[in-house]
């Protein structure tokens, strides 16, 4: 009973800032300008299917690359001495102390014409522009969200009981089998929460693509932002579809791992 009372502030917070806006978006998405019921917003929303797909594709690529980079790193971290673990986790976190936008600006300067990358490659005789394309957007996203992939995997791996690994070794498993049969299965909850924490924000963000992308790299967040100026109904419909996509994604993730991993 006591614990329930303590959660009241959060419940009020959730009601006012999550539930009510959600209901309002739901209502707006199913009405037209005059306020009557209409499916027109959804009809309009589906003209942006290509942007949806592009956003999901960019998010998918970013998540995949983050995972490939993060997993070995988390594995290494978890097996280090405790003191060096702290140092390395700290190093991972330091960039996040800086403002999101400033970090994106740093990438603009790195990738732009006559920037460090361009100058370095021009020594080899390669000239080009490395900004304003989908690859730059993915690089920015990976940079932005990598810590969100590393940390949950690292936490889960730290929790793996060393005696389980010893038991596997006693029973004759080689290094690869220990990884495949013990460490990997036990780290799945971390992987799932990492994927969720990278995929969801990268599918809905638009800042990275606005700054690092070209004219073809518009993301669904950008469309929502612009459409909302004049047409709240279509904007709400697109938001709702995006939410449904993300919800479906979470459910799918839920099927793979235990519920607690999904925050």
């Amino acid at each position: 009973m006591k614990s329930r009372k303590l959660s009241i502030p959060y419940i009020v917070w959730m009601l006012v800032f999550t539930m009510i806006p959600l209901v309002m978006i739901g209502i707006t998405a199913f009405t037209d300008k005059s306020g009557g019921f209409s499916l027109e917003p959804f009809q309009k929303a589906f003209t942006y299917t290509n942007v949806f797909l592009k956003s999901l594709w960019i998010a998918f690529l970013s998540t995949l690359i983050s995972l490939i980079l993060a997993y070995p790193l988390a594995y290494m971290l978890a097996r280090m001495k405790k003191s060096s673990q702290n140092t390395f986790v700290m190093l991972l976190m330091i960039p996040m102390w800086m403002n999101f936008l400033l970090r994106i600006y740093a990438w603009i300067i790195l990738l732009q014409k006559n920037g460090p990358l361009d100058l370095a490659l021009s020594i080899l005789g390669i000239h080009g522009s490395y900004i304003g394309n989908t690859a730059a957007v993915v690089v920015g996203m990976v940079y932005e969200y990598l810590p969100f992939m590393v940390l949950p995997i690292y936490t889960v791996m730290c929790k793996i009981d060393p005696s389980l690994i010893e038991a596997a070794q006693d029973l004759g498993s080689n290094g690869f089998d220990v990884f495949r049969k013990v460490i990997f299965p036990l780290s799945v909850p971390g992987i799932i929460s990492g994927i969720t924490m990278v995929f969801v924000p990268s599918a809905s963000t638009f800042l990275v693509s606005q700054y690092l992308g070209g004219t073809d790299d518009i993301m669904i967040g950008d469309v929502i932002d612009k459409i909302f100026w004049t047409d709240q109904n279509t904007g709400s419909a697109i938001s709702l579809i995006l939410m449904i996509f993300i919800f479906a994604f979470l459910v799918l993730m839920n099927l793979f791992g235990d519920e607690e991993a999904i925050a």
Partner: protein
Amino acid sequence: MKKIISILLSAILACSAAAALSGCGSASTEDKGEVNIFNWGDYVANGEDGLLDVVEEFEKETGIKVNYTTYDTNEEMYNMLKNSNVSYDVICPSDYMITKLIKENMLLELNFDNIPNYKNLNDRFKKLSCDPEGKYSVCCNWGVTGLVYDKTKVSEKPVSWASLWDEQYKGEILMFNNSRDAMAIAMQMCGIDPSKCTKADIDKATEKLREQKPLVKKYVMDQVFTEMEGGQATIAPYYAGDIEVMMEENEDLDYALPEEGSNLFYDALCIPSCSKNKENAEAFINFMHKPEIAAENCKYLRYGTPNDAAAELLDEDIRNNELTFPSDDYLKKCYVLSDVDDEVYAYMQEQFVNIQAE
């Protein structure tokens, strides 16, 4: 299921309670000595570059506390006034938005007895077409749109908007990321008068912009500064006052006022009908038109000031600069955007998003 229903019900309850509360809200926080300013971002001298901090100066002189909030677009400001229960005392809409606000009874008539500095204004800016009787607004800045380009990268000096469609600058062109300005340029290219546009005109402009998209590096607003100052692009359209600021940062840049004319815009200080401190608001408007203050703002922004007394205080190189004060001959070729119907504007915005989304 029962749980969900109860959550929904309580949400609705909380919703109506919030609505009831907000209806009478903010009265208690109101103090006699306050003024709530809702202005464009980065729009008054703020103490940088050796200039005055105008807001601080106002507080010092009058003892009125300023709550300063900013917006990026006229539409954002309009939505804020229209849809949320806020109270602002001074806003600074542009021409077409003033027309719209007057039409919807969202502005208060000004008491010019409280704004004696109004006499400093050039007569040309006293009865603008958007406020023909001059009852609701006091013009504070004006300017035109123009082209900024990198001298080292162009083969010949651009003279018209057509350069934004020039194949040789492919991938080096920046374009307005704002439907109204982008469409206006495209309409001029199609020989349409952008000041009063119809859906058919928008369709033609959309086609023109679609044609341009493969040549465009990026659709930008504020990013134009870093792009042009850093030599990352060749040519871009932007507001003339801002072009002057860019040219000071990068001496390879030069400007052109398109020969076919461009968009002449006015921003004016107004008092919205939700104001609760009208006299303080008038005091602020009056302060903004003190010659020294208006001059200070002009030095900072480099948009034209309608304040003749302030113009006299400016250095000659600003006063004679075509970007800050375009010649009367040029202004004759310019057009002022008028208010279009909500429906037409929504259509314009939708088409602009579609061009980018394709």
